[in-house]
């Protein structure tokens, strides 16, 4: 009689398939994961849930503390992932994959030494790589001329950080420097009610999406703040109520800034800044156009 494969056994089958290869990157594990589950490109939300459930039988949705997006534990043979309730589907999928990656690495460590150094960045990169397969996502980003609004519309359910992380990685492997910045207006609610403060940049907190061990760091760099000021000014100079993305050229660099607004009083909630060298970007665009 054939034995029914439990989630733990399926997970171990996948983990065992990774053992012969050393130093697998999160993106390589993501490719193997997508192949293992025959995920479409891009994968649908139900297919992600189903793929993760096949590895971890116990998925829970709970009211998690404010600082936690997801949680997992392994105790004996019991593996559970708990996700925050009332999240967008993209956020759930990202967190689920993030937690699953940590579990995969835990299992891998049990079978292999030295242990794989785990960072939040790697788990986030794994999640972003599964959700945004290279071919489709990068091509679309170039086709849309890196219009972040268009990219976000296409991948509506995903977080800005996740999108920028993936872009940063893909531009990096194409040997192009790319910096993704999220400037969040911490006092946007306040500015809604007091329009006179809308131009006050002091309440903007900058997060840089990097490829370093940390997926994001808080940064307070004078030059970046000046750049943010220029972008903010240009955005606010638009007469339309709904402000659009703007593009600035600063020396050899191209800066694309996309505002996300509170509609009621036009206060800016977030500005996404993408910084990359003009020359490299143009070369990449030419290469993309040449493709049949």
């Amino acid at each position, binding site marked *: 009689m054939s034995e029914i494969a439990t989630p733990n056994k399926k997970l171990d089958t996948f983990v065992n398939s990774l053992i012969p290869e050393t130093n697998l990157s999160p993106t390589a594990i993501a490719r193997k994961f997508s192949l293992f589950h025959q995920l479409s490109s891009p994968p649908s939300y139900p297919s992600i849930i189903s793929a993760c459930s096949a590895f971890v039988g116990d998925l829970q949705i709970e009211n*998690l*503390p404010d600082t*936690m*997006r997801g*949680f997992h534990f*392994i*105790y004996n043979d019991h593996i559970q992932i708990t996700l925050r309730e009332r999240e967008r589907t993209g956020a759930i999928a990202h*967190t689920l994959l993030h*937690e699953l990656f940590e579990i995969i690495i835990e299992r891998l460590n049990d079978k292999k030494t030295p242990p794989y150094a*785990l960072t939040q960045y790697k788990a986030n990169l794994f999640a972003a790589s599964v959700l945004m397969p290279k071919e489709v996502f990068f091509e679309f980003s170039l086709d849309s001329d890196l219009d972040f609004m268009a990219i976000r519309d296409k991948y509506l359910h995903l977080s800005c950080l996740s999108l920028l992380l993936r872009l940063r990685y893909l531009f990096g492997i194409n040997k192009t420097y790319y910096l993704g910045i999220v400037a969040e207006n911490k006092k946007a609610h306040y500015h809604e009610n007091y329009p006179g403060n809308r131009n006050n940049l002091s309440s903007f907190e900058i997060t840089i999406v990097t490829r370093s061990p940390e997926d994001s760091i808080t940064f307070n760099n004078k030059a970046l703040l000046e750049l943010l000021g220029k972008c903010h000014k240009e955005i606010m100079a638009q007469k339309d109520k709904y402000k659009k993305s703007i593009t600035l050229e600063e020396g050899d660099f191209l800066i694309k800034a996309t505002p996300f607004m509170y509609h009621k009083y036009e206060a800016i909630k977030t500005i996404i800044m993408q910084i990359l060298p003009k020359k490299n970007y143009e070369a990449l665009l030419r290469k993309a156009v040449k493709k049949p």
Partner: protein
Amino acid sequence: MAKKIRTSPPFGQFLKDLRERKGLSLDEVEEATGIPNAYLCQLETGARKKLPAPERLRIIADYYNVSIQELLEKAGYYESKEIEETFEQKIEKAFLHVVNDPSFKYGTRVKKEYDLDAKRFIIEMYEKVTGKKLL
């Protein structure tokens, strides 16, 4: 002026018990905590009469997974009934227990650092799955 209290044999014995329960040598404790093994040995045998500085006590408490209160009490700083643990201290102590249980592995996607609520949630999950009562 700081109150000078001499280490008592129960304190040394307590430290020795903690170390032996973990099956560790003095060298291994030195390697993990950075506290010289000769110093640790003097504490355990009672040869060193002066108590460790609070920072060293904290390191020892964290390493052996006991509360700083328990250690201070054993060292003779105060009677246990004198000071009751705050809720925050109880959480920290229980969380340390969870972190040091090798049979329970966990991970979480947190925005910055674990705050008290996050630690409490992890402790509650631990209690639920292991059946142990920590809080």
